[in-house]
Every structure is written in C-alpha cells, then in structure tokens.
C-alpha cells in the first residue's frame, strides 16, 4: 500500500510544475534552446542539469555572433558562426535563458 502511494506521489511529482526548474526537468531528453552571455546561443538535447543550471547537452549546434572590424576602414560587419559539438557541458553562470525549442 505504502509503496504504491509513494509511487503515485513520485509520478505526480514528475509532472507537476511548482518551480522554474521543474519546467527544465520536463525538457530532459528534449531539444532546448539556450541563450548565453557573450552573444552566443545553442540548441541541443538536454541530458543533465543541476540547480546552478550547469548542463550537459548532446547534438549541439552553437551560434556565435560577433562584429568583425575592417583593418583599414574600421567598418564593422555583423558575423555569425555556427559550430557543432557531439556532447557539451555548459557552465550555469553563462546561461541567460532556457526554452523548450520550437520544432523546425
């Protein structure tokens, strides 16, 4: 009896969203979009996270935006560079936002 109750409770806990991090728990093994400090964004499958928002992602695509400055005219052009990585640990303190990614 008690064991069944506990199991039900656990199942309820698994879907209930009581605090922000619960939303991230529901994205486990799903593709997420993450905006990072330093004009970077990444998309990837969320495999692990902790309360600091440290994360491990799989099949990652990173986009870095930066200004390139011409050596002579000092003219700036906005460039964007994409990189793929199979598995990536991301440190929580560079994370700005996490969102369940829209399917493309």
């Amino acid at each position, binding site marked *: 009896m008690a064991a069944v109750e506990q199991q039900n409770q656990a199942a309820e806990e698994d879907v209930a969203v009581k605090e922000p991090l619960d939303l991230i728990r529901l994205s486990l093994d799903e593709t997420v979009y993450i905006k990072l400090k330093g004009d970077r964004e990444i998309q990837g499958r969320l495999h692990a996270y902790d309360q600091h928002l440290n994360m491990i992602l799989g099949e990652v695509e990173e986009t870095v935006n930066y*200004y390139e*400055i011409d050596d002579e005219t*000092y003219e*700036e052009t906005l460039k964007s560079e994409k990189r793929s990585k199979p598995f990536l640990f991301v440190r929580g303190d560079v994370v700005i936002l996490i969102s369940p990614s829209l399917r493309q």
Partner: protein
Amino acid sequence: MDGQGQGQGQGQGQDRLANRHQARTPLHAKALIEELDHKQLVVLRDGRKIVGLFRSCDQFANLVFQNPYERIIVGKQYCDLPLGSIYLVRGENVVMMGRVDEGREIPSTLQLVSPAEIRKAQQAEKEEQLIRGTMLKRLDFLDLE
C-alpha cells in the same frame, strides 16, 4: 654543479612543505598542492601573465609566488618585468595556472626586448584597441540591428 646541489636541497624542502600542506588542506585542493614549489605560469582574468615559484595556496585558489615576474608579450616581442619578492594572487582573478617546462620556457619565435620597448609596444596596442572599442560603443549607442 652548484645548481644541482641546490636543486636537491630544494627537493627535500619541497617534500617537507608538501607534507605540511597535505596535513592541513582538504583533499580537493590536492590538484594545486601537487604543483607547490614548481615554477608556474599564471594567466589572470585581465590577460596578464605571471611567472613565479609557486609557494602556497588555499581552497579559494588564492596563490602565493616567490620572485615572480610579469611576462609581457606584444606581437613577436616579449619582456619579463620583476614584481618583487613575494606576490599573492587573489583566487577569483586566476584563469589558469600551468607548470613551466624550464627547458623551453620561451618560444624561439619570440624576441627579448627592453622594458622601455615593451611598454611602448603595449601602449601602441592599447591605443589601437581603444579606437576599435570606441567604434563598437558608438554602434551600440545607435542600436543598429
């Protein structure tokens, strides 16, 4: 010959010092303790590079160096400027620390210049970056997207 003798003496002292540290420091600081009494290169958050004999540390990665010098590299030129006898680096400013291989400390592509020359080169580099920085700020202000 003289140098070798000194090296051995230092080796014994090093063991004693390491043992003393091990007794007082929690296990997780072991990574740093292994590096005690070796010459290290430290990179700071502002990009400065300090080379010195690593003498002490704690759990915040506060680091103490003996006879350190700042290694300034501008382009293909470099210069080592002494920083005094004892130097403490606050942990939060440490980016990384690596043991220096004394045999090949300076890459042969770099050329030693005088402190005055390196300061001049540094100033020129700084001014160029300043111009670039100002341009970027102006663009931020205009909020072009």
